[in-house]
């Protein structure tokens, strides 16, 4: 292992990007394409045009914050790319993205579906097995992410030169 190998910037960048991507999967797939729930669909059932519009606004606010998470993740990734002690590992990035997606499912599922009850995965069923499956998918994604991160850590050295390294011309 390299003398000073710092995995944390890459892990946190990938986790934030994964949180953002997980949020977009939820929002795009469940809220928009399948339309099986909306942000406040347990409190305001989307059975009138006004309620559909109100839910759409709150869906949009949720998407805006998800977008911010993704942008912050990209900023952290950019910064990680400029640090000389951060390994440039695709496995660690992919694993941390999966970890972030799983974290999104766990936190959002526990808070919004179970504790606050503002919506459920399949709204017409209420709190159902689908909400349990959502949490289970979160755990599975986190475990998969951890496994990939560990394999990445075990065979990773710092492979990018950092910002102050001399530039090697192509073909040299």
């Amino acid at each position, binding site marked *: *292992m390299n*003398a*000073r*190998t*710092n*995995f*944390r*910037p890459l*892990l*946190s960048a990938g*986790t*934030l990007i994964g*949180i953002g991507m997980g949020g977009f999967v939820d929002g795009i797939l469940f809220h928009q394409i399948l339309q099986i729930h909306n*942000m*406040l669909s347990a409190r*305001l059932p989307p059975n009138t*045009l*006004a*309620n559909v*519009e*109100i839910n759409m*606004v*709150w869906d949009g*606010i*949720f998407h805006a*914050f998800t977008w*911010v*998470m993704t942008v*912050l993740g990209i900023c*952290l990734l950019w910064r990680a790319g400029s640090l000389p*002690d951060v390994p440039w590992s695709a496995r660690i990035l992919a694993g941390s993205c999966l970890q972030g997606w799983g*974290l*999104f499912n766990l*936190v*959002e599922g526990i*808070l*919004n579906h179970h504790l*606050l009850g*503002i919506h459920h995965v399949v709204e017409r069923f209420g709190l159902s097995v689908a909400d349990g499956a959502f949490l289970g998918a979160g755990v599975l994604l986190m475990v998969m992410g951890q496994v990939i991160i560990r394999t990445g*850590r075990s065979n990773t050295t710092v492979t990018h030169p950092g910002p102050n390294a001399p530039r090697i011309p192509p073909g040299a």
Partner: protein
Amino acid sequence: MVHHCHHRYRRLPGFPVFCLLLALLATSTPHADACPVCDSPTGREVRREIFNEEFGPNLLRTVLPFPIFLGITAFLYVGPPSFRRRNESTPAEDTL
């Protein structure tokens, strides 16, 4: 080939006109006036139902997961306090 290009060129002006007519038709229906910034009975109802006494609680419910995500990510970035103390006192070989 020349004939094909000529054919496309001839048909092109009709398409924007068709799109314009479609857009005018869509915005002339009552449903298109239901947006939160629309000046229509439904638009006003939507605004009233968003900006009422439930706005703050609804906003809190919607964004509550995100500070938790940021907190977990910050923890991942800086590490636990014991790790930080160790990292400051001795040069680390592997910081995670």
